[in-house]
């Protein structure tokens, strides 16, 4: 393990999105995350870096994996972690996000992790609380820790991010994962391609400076990385695409389509997967898949983010 003071001070109080981070900021987080991987692979996985600190996970959308990942990250660092299950809380009785924020803030947490169905919810929360806020996904806006863990996974496998050709495939329209990845990978110098049926492309995508195509063969040609996006079930039955069968035929990743990419192309998916819709089991469980690594990197990235935000040197600064 590297000592905390060996990392440059992270200059932001919150992590609300990848937008606004400099490449240097991203490098700090990735370096810290790389370090956290080592801790997580030891037999004794516990550190005391965040001992005495309180972390509240406020999840307005059900999410088993992301919530578990944040919880585990906090616990490995010695923080006290509380999960607010919104389904059974006063939010259902009509309490607004801001009132909930003010209430939680009064309990003096050090870090609030929020997932919300509305874009901008994390930013709104951050204006009303005195602690650090981590965006764990807000509507179709951003999911910064996902982009960071994807970048870490790629970097550890390929040694770099710059000049890699990354194809992001599927429901870009509704995907915060895609947005955060486009910003992060673009900032780090990757070449980006978007592959999706036009009904799942957001407005203005052709002005983003990425290649856009409706053909998997074209989009995957010589790619170093292919990222598949989850297609929500309610969007498969005629609203955005006619059927999951047709979607899989043209946009689902199978062995045949993957042949267009480089032989050592990484296959990624943020999970949870719809096997047989956006990805075949043979590919998801195949030799090029790094989907399990992504989950492992997820815990490390979240540890890194929380340590960077709660850097003790920052308190010294404030005290001084």
């Amino acid at each position, binding site marked *: 393990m590297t000592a905390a003071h060996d990392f440059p001070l992270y200059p932001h109080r919150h992590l609300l999105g990848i*937008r606004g981070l400099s490449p240097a900021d991203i490098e700090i987080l990735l370096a810290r995350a790389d370090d956290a991987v080592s801790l997580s692979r030891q037999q004794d996985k516990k550190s005391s870096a965040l001992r005495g600190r309180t972390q509240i996970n406020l999840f307005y959308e059900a999410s088993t994996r992301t919530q578990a990942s944040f919880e585990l990250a906090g616990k490995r660092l010695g923080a006290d972690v509380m999960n607010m299950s919104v389904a059974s809380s006063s939010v259902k009785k009509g309490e*607004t*996000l*801001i009132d909930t924020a003010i209430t939680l803030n009064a309990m003096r947490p050090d870090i609030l992790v929020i997932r*919300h169905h*509305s*874009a*901008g*919810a994390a*930013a*709104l929360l951050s204006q009303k609380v005195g602690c650090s806020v981590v965006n764990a996904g*807000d*509507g*179709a*806006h*951003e999911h910064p820790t996902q982009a960071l863990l994807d970048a870490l996974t790629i970097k550890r496998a390929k040694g770099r991010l710059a000049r890699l050709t990354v194809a992001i495939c599927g429901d870009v329209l509704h995907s*915060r994962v895609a*947005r955060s990845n486009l910003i992060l990978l673009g900032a780090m110098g990757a070449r980006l391609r978007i592959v999706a049926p036009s009904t799942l492309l*957001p*407005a*203005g*995508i052709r*002005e*983003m400076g990425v290649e856009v195509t409706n053909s998997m063969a074209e989009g995957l040609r010589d790619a170093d990385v292919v990222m598949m996006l989850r297609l929500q079930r309610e969007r498969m039955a005629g609203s955005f695409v006619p059927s999951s069968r047709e979607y899989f035929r043209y946009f689902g990743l199978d062995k045949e389509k993957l042949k267009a990419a480089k032989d050592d192309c990484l296959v990624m998916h943020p999970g949870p997967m719809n096997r047989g819709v956006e990805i075949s089991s043979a590919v998801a469980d195949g030799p090029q898949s790094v989907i399990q690594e992504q989950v492992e990197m997820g815990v490390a990235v979240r540890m890194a983010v929380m340590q960077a935000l709660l850097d003790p040197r920052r308190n010294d600064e404030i005290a001084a």
Partner: protein
Amino acid sequence: MSASLFERARIVDPLRGLDETGSVLVVDGKITASGADALNQGAPEGATRIDCANKLLVPGLIDSWVFIGEPGGEHRETIASAGKAAAAGGVTSLVMMPDTNPVIDDVALVEFVLRTARASAEINIHPAASVTKGLEGRELTEFGLLKQAGAVAFAEGRHSIRSSLVMRRALTYARDFDAVVAHQTTDADLAADGVMNEGLYGTWLGLPGIPREAELLPLERDLSLARLTGAKYHAAKLSTALSADAIRRAKQDGADVTAGAAIANLSLNENDVGEYRTFFKLDPPLRAEEDRQAMIEALRDGTIDILVSSHDPQDVDTKRLPFADAEAGAIGLETLLAAALRLYHSGEVPLLRLVDALSTAPARRFGLEGGTLRPTAVANLALIDLDEPWIVREEALLSRSKNTCFEGARMQGRVLQTMVAGRTVFQAESYR
């Protein structure tokens, strides 16, 4: 007898095509002399003489798209508080939207509004009745009785009529009563869950977009039906270049069609939404800069006849929410004139056209008194310092709600005095 003489003012009176230095004499609530030929003619004994050198005198503004919370939402705005805000903005008459609780779809409600306005507001408040009962888009309201009771237009407020058949019947029936149907068009299916302009900026914010075509498609339908029926149709709040083109074509075809736009859509664009600023969530949404430019051009060339504030008071409860969940709308009675004057100061729209859009054109379209300074007209007027700089401050606004999208904005041009039927209803502090 009471008399006031406004001397040596720059008089802008679009009805007479007049922009000249002159005097305006008001006697017992009426204008009795007005223009250069009224200069140095003296005044009746006891008249208040007001030196207006370097000041602008215009017919009082007529804001034809205003939401008020009374009845049913008095915590947002009352008829009295809207009247005060209007007077401070140089607005001497306004048309109130029927989106109240209960809806203004019945003679009793029209009478309630007029009675309350007489008792509590110093400016003229004219109710628009809803086109359909309960704003539900199905059954027509009693156009004849409502008009007779004092409804000056038939409007569906925040709602848009989905059924082409209902719209056709409304226009056909309105024609029998020579009534104007004013409609803000939104295709609810196409707009879906959209909350801002559809485009790259909205995509990066992760907010669902409202395409321009959601405004255009029902507008094209309405314009076709206006041609078919020969009715008076007013496209109330346009926001896109495509819509302006549709209006141009309909006017060329000779349809009895007019168009309006909210000043916000000529002052601001989608980038003003910034980081989810809900005070900039408007309906129609703030569009791209090209659309804003096209709207200014459409105002300049008269395609857009009327400018409105689209004053829509919202409480903190409905605005302090994530962007998608917040209510749309912003207040605007007190900033309508100053925001419009930006277009004059920038040289984009001549003053005569601007005053026409703010006063004369709405008076003509909705058959309201005022809108001119010619002799015999009612003395509804606003005295303005065209150059006085000021900064919009939420705490200085008189409206009961504070959801302005001009907070902190620098303005040039300010109302000094507002007069309704010869009575001064507002005087700026600096001018007292």
